[in-house]
């Protein structure tokens, strides 16, 4: 379904999204070994990335706008995502529904997504339909037409989406509160979907103003992956996207930055429906865009060693050895314009309380900071991580996603291409050093998901 967001999903590891989250966390920003990727810019400023993949006569067509929830005006949270929904409401040239109808009739797939730093639209179709898509997508780059009726109905849909993703899900509600507590000043603290009371107030004028401010070829990246040549895509782009005028001048994405963080925070979400408590912590850490050379890569390796799968330190210690948790892990969302978060979590077994769980989590973190990681762990994790690049090559969408997300957050094609080499170069000392430097509790928020027994009694 339309909507949702990378960042949002990555945050919600307490909820039902765990499986998808890990996949994406592992995928985002990784390299695509082997593919010969071309990258160029049209005269109107639109960046183009072409990823040839001739195994199937199909293409994946994605347009990424360098705008997300972190670019919203305070008080209008949810606007980037709301606009993403409204982008399906038609243009002067193509009335509501026509684009989707055409995609459906050729058996194509389409969707869209919003994150803190970007908004994307994609379709996947037989290769001979590429030009049709490009015409439609170029048209809605600047031609959106909105009626009050369409806006009002869609607002209800977005509120249902908020209900489904957040209001109905205690884990997701805690995730939102933790994110808000982690960022003292930066707009990453706002949920991508928006705060409900602010979503409720969004209107047609807000959406159009946001659209006119950010939707322009020079603020977008076109990624085409599939059975195409660079020349073909170039020619088609000249016939379609190149005709869209640049309507705004882009500005550097300067968001309010975090002050020195001095106090560890804790938040507790109590809900009568919580039957499985859990504890998690977010640390504020550099992203691949803001990190010093090598640091983001070391954080990726650290997240893997610490918390990916059943070989990880957290799982081995808390689940295997001590038998006090049912699950435990860590993840790092490297792909972001500004400082991002590194998260760790554990779900206790019945009989372990959250305090004990957190202490045990801290013991594992302390040991990695003090003693570092073994060569065996390092080699094993790196070989597993680098294989992900090969596995990703097997899926056109994942490839397009890597390059799109990287470019939309200030990274480069070259950086994506060299990802495997950069991971290979990470040393055990570097992993230990980033753990020491960045897993600092003063720059963190710890969240407890607990059962609210009080309100249950009140109800009965």
């Amino acid at each position, binding site marked *: 379904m339309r909507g*949702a967001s990378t960042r949002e999903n990555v945050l919600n590891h307490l909820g039902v999204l765990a499986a998808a989250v890990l996949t994406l966390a592992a995928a985002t920003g990784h390299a695509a070994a082997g593919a010969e990727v071309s990258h160029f810019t049209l005269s109107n400023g639109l960046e183009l990335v072409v990823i040839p993949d001739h195994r199937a006569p199909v293409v994946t067509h994605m347009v990424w706008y360098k705008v997300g929830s972190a670019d919203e005006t305070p008080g209008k949270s949810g606007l980037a995502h709301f606009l993403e929904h409204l982008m399906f409401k038609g243009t002067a040239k193509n009335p509501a529904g026509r684009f989707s109808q055409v995609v459906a009739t050729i058996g194509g797939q389409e969707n869209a997504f919003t994150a803190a730093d970007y908004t994307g639209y994609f379709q996947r179709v037989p290769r001979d339909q590429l030009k049709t898509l490009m015409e439609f997508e170029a048209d809605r780059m600047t031609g959106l037409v909105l009626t009050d009726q369409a806006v009002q109905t869609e607002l209800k849909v977005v509120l249902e989406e908020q*209900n489904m993703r957040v209001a109905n899900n205690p884990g997701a509600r805690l995730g939102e509160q933790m994110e808000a507590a982690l960022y003292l000043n930066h707009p990453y603290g706002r949920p991508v979907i928006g705060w409900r009371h602010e979503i409720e107030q969004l209107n047609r004028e807000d959406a159009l103003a946001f659209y006119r401010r950010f939707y322009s070829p020079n603020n977008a990246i076109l990624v085409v992956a599939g059975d195409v040549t660079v020349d073909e895509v170039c020619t088609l782009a000249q016939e379609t996207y190149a005709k869209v005028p640049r309507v705004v001048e882009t500005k550097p994405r300067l968001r309010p930055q975090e002050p020195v963080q001095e106090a560890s925070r804790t938040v507790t979400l109590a809900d009568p*429906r919580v039957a499985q408590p859990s504890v998690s912590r977010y640390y504020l850490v550099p992203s691949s865009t803001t990190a010093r050379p090598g640091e983001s890569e070391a954080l990726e390796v650290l997240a893997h060693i610490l918390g990916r799968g*059943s070989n990880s330190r957290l799982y081995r210690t808390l689940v295997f050895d001590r038998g006090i948790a049912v699950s435990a892990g860590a993840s790092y969302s490297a792909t972001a314009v500004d400082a991002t978060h590194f998260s760790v979590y554990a779900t206790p077994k019945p009989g372990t309380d959250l305090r004990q769980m957190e202490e045990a989590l801290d013991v594992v973190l302390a040991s990695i900071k003090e003693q570092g990681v073994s060569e065996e762990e390092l080699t094993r994790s790196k070989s597993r991580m680098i294989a992900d690049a090969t596995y990703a090559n097997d899926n056109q969408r994942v490839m397009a996603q890597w390059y799109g997300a990287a470019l939309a957050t200030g990274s480069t094609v070259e950086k994506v291409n060299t990802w495997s080499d950069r991971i290979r170069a990470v040393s055990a000392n570097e992993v230990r050093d980033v753990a020491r430097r960045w897993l600092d509790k003063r720059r963190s928020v710890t969240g407890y998901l607990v059962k609210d027994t009080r309100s249950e009694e009140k109800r009965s």
Partner: protein
Amino acid sequence: MNPAARYRALLNCLAAACVAAGALSSALPASAMTIERVVSPGGIEAWIVHSSAPMIALDFAMQGSADQDPPDKLGVAYLAASLLDEGAGPYDAMSFHARLERSAIEIGFRAGRDYLRGNLRSLRENRDEAFDYLRLALTQPRFDAEAVERMRSQIMSRLRREIVSPTDLASRNWWAAAFPGHPYGRPVEGTLESLPRITVDDLRSYSARVLARGSLKVAIVGDVDAETAGTLLDRTFGSLPARAELDPVSRVAAQGLGRRIVIKLDVPQAAVSFGGPGVSRNDPDFMAAYVVNHILGGGSFSSRLYREVREKRGLAYGISDSLVWLNQTALMIGHTATRADATGKTIEIIDKETQRLAEEGPTEEELMKAKSYLKGSFALGLDSSNAIASQLVQMQLDSLGIDYIERRAGLIDGVTMADAKRVAKRLLDHGLLITVAGRPEGLAPKEGE
């Protein structure tokens, strides 16, 4: 994917949105894909697609899964499947996992309602090692006490989350009401009561009875020739017993049509499951039913339910339904979620649209567009080597024939307006069993006819 897994994946789609919803990319085109049937010297058949990718993917299925669970020990198959890669042969769980990770090998097993499914993914250079681990997992699973307790705890922890999730509750209760007293009405994962009762002997007995070559279906996608594949197949599956010992499962049809069941839960949005009997995969009307169902609530943005419930009225973020086929029954089942005060209205629309399609059939334009979509979308769903392998196993389970992909478009084109109308009536004209978890307004629980 087996039907039960397909159905679970749909829920994930709704939840994980862009990540999971767009089954994009395709590793190989349907049209250009050549499937080779290989029979190993030991008599094991596999369908193979040759690919130059530097990796290999395998998928397989064996009959006998949650449908074989003893009624007082629900979840045996599910727990056993979760344990096959938790220690095997000389390796305990920790050492088994470490070996897999070092060589970037992925092995997974999952129990559905009818089938145990498994898959493997490996880099080309680690292929033989990967198949060795798969063999160990299938033929010498250890079921060490430590691992059994660990996986039991994990499943129970997940269950504790699910039994307070509106979506899971609506769905769970739908299956229970549709198939009372039948294995299909029982949760595949077991229950908080049944899981503690399962012993290591139960798990051993399950794997000894079910893991067998008799009903094995295998597909491989990778850079492997027929002779090598034969050797790998024999080495991996050859030492399994020839036949499984399966308890018979009776034929059953979904019951409770017309019923409205409300599970009270204090959440702002009510989750709704709706459905009824479907059409079997081997029924001559299947393709017509598939087309009709796509028009009603299939996965695109243009179905009638999507248009009426979401586009026109903004009552839900997602609404869709799909056909599900199991060995002993066939279903259509759908899901949506809507705010408490709109639940009655949403259900009224679902009922009305279902009935309208049953009575009037689709329009010519809808039929044309649905056929066009279904023809085109198939290839796009084959989005990775593992997705292709999984699809090839499903085709074998469904007895569709190795040339099915070539015939498929013709079968869809062959659905006439008369077929669509007749099958719409057959599929949709019997009322729906509806379960709701939340605090719905405008909806009274109702017993069926």
